[in-house]
């Protein structure tokens, strides 16, 4: 016990653990978002979660009430719902709807902070950079141990996300790859989608303190995308995503210590290095593809005709199976 306490008392351990938990929680959900082509919704959610946090703060006057998480989750789901509403009105396209809703909510949140919450720890820099460096200062008692509050929060959120993915694995898989079949089997893929995005919102709140709202997006999107280039199996994609997240937390912390820069930013940047490696060496990466193209029985030249750059149906459920 005392050995564990001594270990936890080192700020570095706490920081790396929090970063790893944020990464695992985010990339587990992110894998499904990437496959459903809804990645940019995580960007939208991570911005508008701030509005929920600010409103909860204005209502309760504190920054760590249960209302805090509930408000943020509601704001996240509200963003998704508003975006959906705009798309269904058929007056703007999906990409524009996403880009209209979250900046408006985020702008409102920033102004509310400007007006009402000037003096609290909710300053706008924290929104962007996170304060993982100070996470170990705020501790709570858990089973005789002094543990950083953020660590406990992120541990709970991560466990919830792991449970969600394990228990609903089949449903999530089917809703992601074949929403029509899922509907035919009575699985309510839309409900699964909202549950997924609700958990993304909750995770964003937890991550908000650690790495900041926007860097959270890196943890949601980049590790699963890198894993997507490495494997064709869903469970492997999830596992690789988690491994990359943990590696980024370790590597990012070391880099941030060496250069004395933002720890959250360094962790998020490190995910990019993993993506670069996957991009070059992965099963679906550039080197393999180029070599395959150079082989005698080369397939028809891929990408010879310029493919359109228009974004795919982001908020719509993926219609195709993964190749």
């Amino acid at each position, binding site marked *: 016990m005392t050995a564990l306490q001594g270990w936890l008392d080192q700020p570095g351990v706490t920081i790396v653990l929090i970063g790893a938990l944020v990464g695992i929680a985010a990339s587990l959900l992110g894998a499904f978002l990437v496959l459903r082509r809804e990645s940019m919704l995580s960007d939208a959610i991570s911005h508008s979660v701030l509005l929920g946090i600010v409103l909860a703060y204005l209502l309760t006057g504190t920054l760590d009430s249960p209302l805090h998480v509930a408000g943020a989750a509601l704001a996240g789901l509200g963003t998704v719902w508003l975006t959906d509403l705009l798309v269904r009105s058929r007056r*703007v396209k999906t990409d524009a709807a996403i880009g209209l809703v979250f900046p408006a909510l985020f*702008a409102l949140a920033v102004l509310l902070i400007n007006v009402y919450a000037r003096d609290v720890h909710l300053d706008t820099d924290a929104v962007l950079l996170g304060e993982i460096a100070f996470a170990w200062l705020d501790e709570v008692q858990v089973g005789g141990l002094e543990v950083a509050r953020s660590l406990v929060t992120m541990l709970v959120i991560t466990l919830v996300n792991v449970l969600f993915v394990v228990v609903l694995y089949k449903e999530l898989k089917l809703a992601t790859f074949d929403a029509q079949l899922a509907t035919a089997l009575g699985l309510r893929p839309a409900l699964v989608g909202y549950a997924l995005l609700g958990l993304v919102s909750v995770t964003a709140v937890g991550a908000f303190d650690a790495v*900041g709202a926007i860097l959270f997006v890196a943890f949601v999107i980049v590790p699963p995308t890198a894993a997507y280039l490495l494997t064709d199996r869903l469970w492997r994609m999830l596992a690789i995503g988690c491994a990359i997240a943990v590696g980024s937390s370790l590597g990012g912390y070391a880099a941030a210590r060496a250069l004395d820069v933002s720890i959250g930013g360094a962790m*998020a940047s490190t995910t990019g290095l993993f993506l670069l490696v996957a*991009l070059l060496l992965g099963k679906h990466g550039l080197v393999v593809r180029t070599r395959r193209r150079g082989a005698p029985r080369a397939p028809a030249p891929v990408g010879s005709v310029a*493919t359109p*750059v228009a974004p795919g149906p982001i908020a719509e459920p993926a219609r195709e199976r993964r190749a």
Partner: protein
Amino acid sequence: MELFGLLGDFTVRTVALGAALVGVVAGVLGSFALLRQQSLLGDALSHAALPGVCLGFLLAGSRRLEPILAGALITGALAALLVMLLTRTTRIKTDAALGVSLSLFFAVGTVLLTYLQRHQGAAQAGLDAFLFGQAAALVPRDLRVLGLIGAVALLAVALTWKELKVTTFDADFARSLGRPVVAIEFGLTVMIAIAVVIGLQLVGVILMVALVIAPAAAARQWARRLEGMVLLAALFGAVSGVTGALVSASVRGLATGPLIVLVASALVAVSLLLAPGRGVAWQLAQAASQRRSLRAHRLLVDLYRLGLAHDDPRYRSEQGMLDAYFGGRTAHVLRRLQRRGLVERVEHMPEEGAHWLLTDAGLQQARALLEPFGTRPADSSAGAARAGPASRADSSDGGAGAGAASSADAPAAEAGASGADEPLGGGR
């Protein structure tokens, strides 16, 4: 009005001019981004400007605007290239590519920002202002730089207008005309990056995407042609910019960027609700008026049919029976028809309540309504009975009887006129 009184102040005038300029350029180029469904590219471009801002500052060693803007433009273009590389050479989809590009560039940006703040003494240089925008930081020299860049971008749009238009709406057609579509698309992306970059100082990297999308999305609701949309988007952008900048200048401590974005978002909301033709309120009103006129037409035809069934074009129908035949309450519809002089109310027998009959004008209109559908005697069962609203066609004996009777008794002129036409019934 107090707001506009501020325009007398020199600093405020500078800021308002700058905001108007930013709004105009973002509105014009945002229109193309919106129509090409590339709105979120603006998001990636604006987040990706952060490392460029820091690099520009680092290399120039001062807060001069030109190197900072050049840096932002370069990293923005790199982010766009990364998106293109990922989507064209791997199986990563556009949304993930945008997210990757946005978050990684921004992450590197925060690393650079904290590095500069802790090592280069940049904390006082106000680089933070580029996150959410700061109106007060704009000086006339900056305005000239921004004006020059903006003018170049607008001039480029004007000169390549036809190419931009055809590439936006039909890239395949443009390619078949031999236009360099890839070059045009790349140029457009660079120009959108320029629009983002010149707004950084006023709106900030996080919210600049809104100023690219919102004015264009609002303008799209009012305009049917590209020319009108682009001009309107420029106007909306300018209005948002000036209003936001003025409010920010008059109330201490309110960041400029969020204010401008909120004004632009409000314009979008108003446009979605009220724009003629596309607006939600407009379409609701139109649907209501169509429902009204459809009800009126149905009732006229019903009265006419009842007349035919009774061998009396001026047959007096009892209101309760009309309700049953019409399948709903008819009192308000009848009153409207009465005001237009198409039906007449008579007290047939006092204890039986109101009776209604068609006036000459009403008779004429009912015939005119039925004419395009034709009422050939031979098609009595299939055609005429279903010429009325489908809901009633198969239900009551009265309906079928009236339909059959109407076609049997139809005036010869009507049957003859429509003889060549297909009866309505079969197809519906």
